[in-house]
């Protein structure tokens, strides 16, 4: 073996992964078990370095499974020795099962990371290409971990806070362990009370009603409009098709004061009808824009054939254009549903009567010092779950529609 840039790069990578694995699984152990673990990060780094040193000792061809096992063993032994048998700052006798799982996870993670980053890395001098390959692998690995954590952690906290009581969390904000022994009922107590006392069942229905109406109205307005912009020739067509997106850039906050004033005087403000007028108006332009992009891509010959055979324009739209553009219509519908479901500003400004709150408005009403936190989080979960389920179900459509047709903010 030769000691060169490759060897040093391997050691750095090993140490980095050792430290990261300790942090990630140490914190996970704390959150899952409720024990106050303090992972020995330095020990993790040293053990990771040792593990990489063992792996890199042999040239790439000679890294047999035996070497891999030796490398993993080096990690385990190094970690336990350097941390004085307290890898997570706890005596091993406390929660041995949890600690054992975490220890195996750390060793497994470092082993896998070393394998993925360093398996074919030479220990001597590296070409710039080979060196960068190692750097990119390490960075990508880091990227996966960081992105997954920053995305998943808030949602994890949302769900876990909703099934814990506030006093409990103030006492120990890190304890997200799920106590199954108390049974399902008490565990989901905040949800039960949310539906019974805070009327979230009603808000769920109202949100669904408003969102679906918005989708239907938007499509009724946008489909004919999009067809006209895409297929028919008329003066000012180009100006129009470019100004559609411009309308979409008008901020809601500029519209809120005049709409609030006028709707107050027309007695429309504290009504669902008011919302169902405003929501489609804000979604029609973008729906029209996305649909016209798709309509333009359909072959005009099909429609011309329909016209030749005696269909009227409206017949052509209904019998030829719409069936062909069903995927686009579905994605626009989903998208509009998402906007209407998630809308906050107008619901907040317009609705005062607790009988007709939408979910967004209902969740805001839980944000008070008198209502314990778990209800706020349970409300957030109730507002999030339906839209996430629909989104995951139709993800393919939505992604296609967003990227093909166009955009949104």
């Amino acid at each position, binding site marked *: 073996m030769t000691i060169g840039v490759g060897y040093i790069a391997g050691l750095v990578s090993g140490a980095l992964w050792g430290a990261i694995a300790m942090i990630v699984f140490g914190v996970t152990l704390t959150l899952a078990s409720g024990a106050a673990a303090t992972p020995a990060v330095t020990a993790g780094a040293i053990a990771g370095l040792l593990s990489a040193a063992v792996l890199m000792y042999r040239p790439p061809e000679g890294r047999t499974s035996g070497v891999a096992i030796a490398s993993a063993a080096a990690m385990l032994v190094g970690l336990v020795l350097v941390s004085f048998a307290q890898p997570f700052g706890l005596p091993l006798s406390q929660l041995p099962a949890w600690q054992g799982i975490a220890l195996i996870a750390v060793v497994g993670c470092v082993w896998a990371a070393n394998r993925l980053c360093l398996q074919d890395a030479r220990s001597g001098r590296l070409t710039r290409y080979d060196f960068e390959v190692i750097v990119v692998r390490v960075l990508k690995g880091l990227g996966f971990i960081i992105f997954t954590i920053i995305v998943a952690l808030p949602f994890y906290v949302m769900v876990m806070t909703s099934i814990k009581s506030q006093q409990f969390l103030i006492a120990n904000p890190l304890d997200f362990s799920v106590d199954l022994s108390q049974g399902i009922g008490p565990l989901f107590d905040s949800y039960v009370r949310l539906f019974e006392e805070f009327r979230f069942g009603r808000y769920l229905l109202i949100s669904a009603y408003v969102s679906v109406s918005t989708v239907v109205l938007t499509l009724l307005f946008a489909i004919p409009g999009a067809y006209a912009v895409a297929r028919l020739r008329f003066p000012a067509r180009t100006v129009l098709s470019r100004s559609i997106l411009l309308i979409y*850039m008008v901020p809601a906050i500029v*519209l809120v004061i005049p709409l609030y004033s006028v709707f107050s005087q027309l007695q429309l403000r504290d009504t669902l009808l008011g919302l169902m007028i405003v929501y489609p108006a804000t979604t029609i332009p973008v729906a029209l824009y996305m649909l016209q992009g798709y309509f333009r891509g359909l072959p005009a010959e099909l429609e011309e054939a329909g016209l030749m055979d005696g269909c*009227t324009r409206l017949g052509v739209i209904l019998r030829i254009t719409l069936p062909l553009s069903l995927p686009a219509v579905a994605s626009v519908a989903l998208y509009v549903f998402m906007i209407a479901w998630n809308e906050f500003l107008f619901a907040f400004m317009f609705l005062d009567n607790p009988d007709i709150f939408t979910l967004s408005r209902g969740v805001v009403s839980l944000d008070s010092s008198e209502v314990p936190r778990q209800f706020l989080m349970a409300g957030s979960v109730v507002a*999030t779950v339906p839209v996430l389920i629909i989104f995951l179900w139709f993800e393919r459509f939505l992604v296609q529609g967003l990227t093909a047709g166009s955009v949104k903010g």
Partner: protein
Amino acid sequence: MVTHTEAADTAERGTTAAKPPNTKLGPMARGEARLAFALLAPTFAIVLAIVLFPLLANFWISFKPVQLADLRPPTPVASERVRGEATAVGDQLLLQYRLRNSSQKAEIRDVSLTDTLPDGLEPLEIDERCVLDGTAISCDLGTWPPGYRERIEIPLEVGAAYLADPVSPRDSRPVMVGDAVNILTSFDFTLSNFQRAFSASEFWVVLRVTIYYTVFGTAGALVLGLFAAQLLNTNFRGRGFLRGLFLFPYVAPVIAVAFTWVVLLDPFSGTLNAIFKQMGVVDSPINFFGQRAVDFELFGLQLSFPLALSTVIAFEAWRYFPLSFLFILARMQSISSDMYEAAEVDGATPMQQFWYISLPQLAGIMSVLFLLRFIWTFNKFDDIFLLTGGAAGTRTLTVDVYEQGFALSNLGAGAAVAVVVFFVLLVFALVYFRFTPKEEGL
């Protein structure tokens, strides 16, 4: 409907005809245009009513001295009382109308009161402004100045019919009618809203915060999106799962994720602060959304880090990176692999391939995304409002609109700030039109 089909018929024939070279439209082209406008008419109507009209109305309101309370128009209010007992024929009751103008600021003209008396109650004398017609009283009360109050009393004599069937006079409500100037439609203008908006030293702070928030929020979302797209641009197991997961922040309702961040970063019961403390990163909890600035020293320089604003910017980048990620990933997958193969043969390293092939190919979509996101971030209200309510140095222009218009109940001042928002946006929109590359299809 008739015109629709007529237009459709004409248009039908119109499609096969070649477009005439002169600019005047032929009859068929005119029919086609008519159909197009008919199809677009509902969209025009609703956009006109809910977007363009409020836009103009906002200008109008910004020049008017309107308070939130003025939205309730001045009305004449009457409350009716009956004094005395009716036990025998000939007893006297006293009917009182207590009248007032609900507004302290506006007069009401041509006020009138009408009411009906129950059977068997005979007025002994009647106010000179009132007329009795059978059992109906109507009074013509003239013009009431702001804050006007008065009391009209009518003594009544009890008759046998009333004792037999005692219907309280209060059962028939007095009907009040009056004309008041609606402050929204009057021609009463003022510049004080703009004076107030611009003269406050806070305005320039707000403007600066808005610019920081917009620039860094947009850049953050774009850079995160670029990295995320790099990660998922290879095929591996679990890729679809991760792609779905990465879109979560964008799909979930803002209200849910904003409150979750508040709970997560809470200085007392928040998980993140607890983790930091447990790991020994910090000694005392960090108040992410409540602390305006952190002072620190770097190479002898006293610097101040705007903590709350940075946290809010981090939230913005977190919530909107999925969008740029989606677009950048779609664009990356359409880059031909030939180029990378050729680069590989020529010995280009991974970083070189990224700098000299990927980035130039992504420049178009990234600049479009930057412009659009820039505008949308500038427009954003919900996020900051829910996270900090504009406290601790995070008040942007949009939050200021709410603060002036609703928290301080001065609609006119709020509208004045909204006008500023609109004009800044107009500049962005012009830039957008000027620089959007058409080939990106946006």
